[in-house]
């Protein structure tokens, strides 16, 4: 349903994503594994179209010159130049890194803002889904989002992304800064969301341990380049992955 071919992203002359091609099939959970600065966030920003906005804003203030090459195809259409908010309407939704919530609004307001594209009934359904996936949010609906813990904010951020009823959901480092127990909770909810929300999920992470057992396919990237591809089990069995990500 989603193909990327020969994607390259430059910040000035620095290459952030290098000749990267990948494919995501409907209903799958796909992992993108890589360490810090491997290019995961740049990759997801490009796939979700956010890079086009960043590029424009940088150009406006005379900042970094960003170049994007290659093609992104979604359901047979080339969407390389489609703005982020249009992609969201088409069902491609990114949940950015560092739990992006609207800090000054309450949890409930956050979910409602996220339901911008949806009608009243869909918003209600979305809120119910978020509460079912993350029961911890039930007690916090009137809490200001910016005052919650990182884990709570991450749960809310995923709930907000699901409000858009994505066909393809990108999660950028959803486990960043979370305790192992909270990581497990979030991963359980993501697994549940894959079925309940009937969506396809691409998850970028540096913590391979909780991710590899649940993904159908994984891409390992280093310095913006694809170094390895395989199913979750194949990657777990790989000695290089073992030493790099599991320390065995």
């Amino acid at each position: 349903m989603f193909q990327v071919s020969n994607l390259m992203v430059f910040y000035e002359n620095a290459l952030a994503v290098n000749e990267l091609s990948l494919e995501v099939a409907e209903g799958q959970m796909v992992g993108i594994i890589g360490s810090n600065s491997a290019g995961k966030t740049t990759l997801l920003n490009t796939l979700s179209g956010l890079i086009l906005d960043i590029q424009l804003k940088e150009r406006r203030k005379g900042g970094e010159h960003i170049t994007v090459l290659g093609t992104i195809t979604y359901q047979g259409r080339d969407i390389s130049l489609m703005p982020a908010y249009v992609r969201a309407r088409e069902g491609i939704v990114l949940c950015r890194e560092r739990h992006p919530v609207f800090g000054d609004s309450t949890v409930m307001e956050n979910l409602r803002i996220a339901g911008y594209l949806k009608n009243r009934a869909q918003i209600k359904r979305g809120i119910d889904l978020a509460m079912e996936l993350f029961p911890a949010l039930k007690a916090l609906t009137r809490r200001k989002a910016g005052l919650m813990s990182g884990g709570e904010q991450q749960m809310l951020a995923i709930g907000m992304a699901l409000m858009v009823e994505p066909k393809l959901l990108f999660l950028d480092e959803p486990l960043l800064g979370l305790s192992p127990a909270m990581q497990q909770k979030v991963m359980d909810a993501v697994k549940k969301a894959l079925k309940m929300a009937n969506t396809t999920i691409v998850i970028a992470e540096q913590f391979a341990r909780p991710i590899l057992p649940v993904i159908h396919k994984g891409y390992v990237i280093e310095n913006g380049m694809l170094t390895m591809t395989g199913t979750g089990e194949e990657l777990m069995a790989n000695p290089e992955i073992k030493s790099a990500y599991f320390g065995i």
Partner: protein
Amino acid sequence: MLEGVLIYGFINSVLLVLVAMGFNLTFGISGVANFAYGALYIMAGFLCWGLLNSLGLPYWLAVAVSVAAIALLAGLLFRFVLLRVRGLVISEVIATFGVGLAILELFRYWGFIGFEYTLPVWLDASFDIGETVVDGQRLIMVAVGAGLTLFLWFFTRHSRIGRAFRGIAQDERTALTLGINADLTAAFAVAFGAGYAAMAALVILPLGTIAVNEGYNVLVNALAVCIVGGLGSTMGVIVAGFLIGYAQIFTATYGETHWMMIVSLAALLVILLVKPSGLFGKQKELEERI
């Protein structure tokens, strides 16, 4: 005496709230700077005056056309000026302030000065409240102010676009990933705020003449009320409007009238020293805690 001060203080407070509401909507709630606000306010007055006196339109139609035209004009201001510098707050402020300056000084240059530039009052009657006489226009202004405030409060909380305003003000990129067209929403915020300015102008200006200098005062008052109240908070605008409004009337009554101008600026300075996020500020509250 005191009764009169209280009543006129109340009216002055509502006037400030009314003037600040549109600015609050654009700059406070949506995070888009529109410092041509005072110019648009005055322009609404002159436009309505022109429609009444040159084209001879009925008053209600002239008011409706002026409000719509000012909102549209602000939309164009966004499209052709603000959009180019969108995301750079200082540039947004400077660009819109420049446009406002140009509009106001053009009016002065064209000779739009004098006592003939007045709008007729909506209601030519006066009422006794206790022992104080209040004219009909001021009462209408209070009613319109209350109505517009209630509408704004409801709109920003319970409408789709109102929620989008809050979204783009807090995190534009996250808003984009949720399918919110940030530029269109911002354009709408500017147009909506300008429409509010025009409505405020058309109920307030019949109380006096349409004077170019008033455009600067309106901007300063709106800015002071919004910052003292806390950017983005409708409740804050109301409370700050009443604080500054009563302070101005008390100053004029028990002090000297010319000190009245300083009250809003003094309030602005004090609040920036004591609590920069404002009385009910939401925007900067988190950062101040950390």
